[in-house]
């Protein structure tokens, strides 16, 4: 019996006016896999994420989560189905505390009715207590539990990145899309991030699609890599295959004219 991929795209594409930002994007990611998505600046990587999370509506093609078509769903619906993401330029809830940031993403998991909150029913307290516990558990994965009451924007940069991942994890996803999580990090922070990604994979067993410019990181952690340039897929395969692929080297370093 064939396994259904967690995420599958079929000829996914989008055109902005005259610009074909992404075309014929095909990928299959299975449970527990970590796939890298790389390409030069402006290749269309973030646009792929925006398509997969309902920020943009694809002009061509389809995409499926565990076999279910996701085209035309709004962002919050896609998230409810199980696609979570982080952003290239960190987007935290800046005026809220670290703990509240994570709690927002647990909003629909620990649901109670409006009247339960108005009259502070036993259900309200029970749900809030469970929610609080899970939020703190998630923070502890990233060693942020002792910063729970800090205002999010006061965290150092590396920890803001981690908090964003913790928040994405709180949505209870099947696949996690990480957009350049190591951008702007120093080597120590990057090493810590690697550790976190490892822990996430062990604890949650989810699929991860990772955009990253740090080649050593990509080559280290990814099981498969897909390379895009000018919106088109130019290569996919195992890390060492990609590292030796002529077209990929040209895309990054330019063609040797002689």
């Amino acid at each position: 019996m064939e396994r259904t991929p967690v995420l599958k795209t079929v000829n996914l594409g989008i055109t902005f006016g005259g610009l074909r930002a992404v075309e014929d994007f095909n990928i299959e990611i299975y449970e527990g896999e970590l796939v890298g998505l790389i390409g030069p600046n402006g290749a269309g990587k973030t646009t792929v994420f925006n398509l997969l999370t309902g920020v943009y509506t694809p002009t061509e093609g389809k995409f499926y989560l565990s076999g279910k078509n996701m085209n035309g769903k709004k962002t919050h619906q896609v998230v409810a189905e199980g696609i979570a993401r982080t952003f290239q330029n960190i987007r935290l809830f800046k005026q809220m505390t670290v703990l509240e940031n994570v709690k927002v993403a647990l909003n629909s998991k620990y649901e109670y009715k409006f009247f339960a909150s108005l009259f502070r029913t036993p259900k309200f307290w029970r749900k809030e207590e469970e929610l609080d516990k899970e939020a703190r558990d998630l923070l502890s994965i990233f060693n942020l539990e002792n910063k729970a009451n800090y205002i999010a924007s006061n965290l150092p940069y590396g920890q803001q990145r981690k908090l964003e991942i913790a928040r994405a994890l709180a949505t209870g996803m099947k696949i996690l899309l990480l957009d350049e999580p190591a951008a702007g990090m120093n080597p120590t922070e990057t090493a810590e991030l690697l550790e976190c990604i490892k822990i996430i994979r062990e604890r949650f067993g989810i699929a991860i699609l990772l955009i990253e410019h740090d080649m050593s990181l990509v080559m280290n952690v990814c099981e498969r890599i897909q390379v895009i340039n000018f919106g088109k897929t130019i290569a996919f395969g195992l890390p060492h295959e990609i590292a030796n692929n002529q077209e990929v080297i040209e895309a990054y370093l330019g063609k040797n004219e002689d």
Partner: protein
Amino acid sequence: MMNKNTKLKGYLVNTVALAVLLMAFLILNANFKTPFYSVVFIPSLWQISYLIILAASLNLVLGFLGQLSLGHCGFMAIGAYTAALLSLYFERAGIFTDKKAPVFIVSILVSLLAGGLLAAIVGIIVGIPALRLKGDYLAIITLGFGMIICNVINNLPFAGMEGLSKGSAAASLYKTGLGFGNTLKTKYAWVAIVITILCLAAMFMFIRSRFGRAIESIRDDEIAASASGINVSLYKVGTFVYSAFFAGIAGGLFACCNSSLSTASFAFTNGSILNSTFIVVMVVVGGMGSLTGSMLSAVLMFLLNYVIKNVIKASGMPLFVQNLFKYPMLVYAIVLIIVIMFKPKGILGTREFSLVNTIEYIKGKLGKKAVKEGGSK
């Protein structure tokens, strides 16, 4: 730690404190009969009540949800007219005719609630299209809706210039329906107080819940909020409607303590204390994202307005000084500028006044003092 017991203790302390204050007020109310009390203090209390509800409810949209709405007075107008018309209807139908009878309280409460509900329904109708816009565009469209509401009311045969608002100041409201004179205002002052407390409690329960977190996340970053699974448009409209409901209740209170209604009181160009920009000023001065801040600034701005209106004229100051205060809106604008310059986040910012924390703080101070004194001995 999110601790249920400390929170329940907080609720208990607040409830006890409010109950004690209310009792004290009732005793005062029964025994105090100076003209100042019934002519100045009690009407001011009514005004402050609805101003507090207005400012706090707008703060839900402006401070917590982060959307600029300039049509809040429109919802207040709906509440005021609905409450007045309903009580008038009761009166004509022969029920609740005696304003001094204890059952009249039912008429007041039903009218206020109806005003709130109708304002909420209109809130849905206005909110769904308007909240697709953001920033300045939202401000302009809500401003427009506020004006439209007032114009519609004005042209309704039973409400506007041909109906409820017909005639001069001594019109229908005094004789029938709501519209209390000073005796009744004194008699029912506790109603205004209790309703204000209930409305604020309902707003606090809302913001201190998953709903409050959701709307604050929308304020901070809409895209990240939806990527965290928040249905942004639903929560936006929901908050807008909730806020409109309370504006409607505030309108009902307004109808109780005024002898007549005119949509001019709620118009954008109205130079007095009641217009949508003035409420925005109250929210900003108190602190966007602080309900207790809104309460505080509602009281302060009321006092400022009172001073401008009554004290300056009677003060015998040189004429040119008095003339400066001829345009109250100018004064509010200056107040706003001063606040933004020196305290950009408003008086309380996003903090809330908490009785329990204040008690703890004072205890701490006293404790330290005791330790110091103990040490010096």
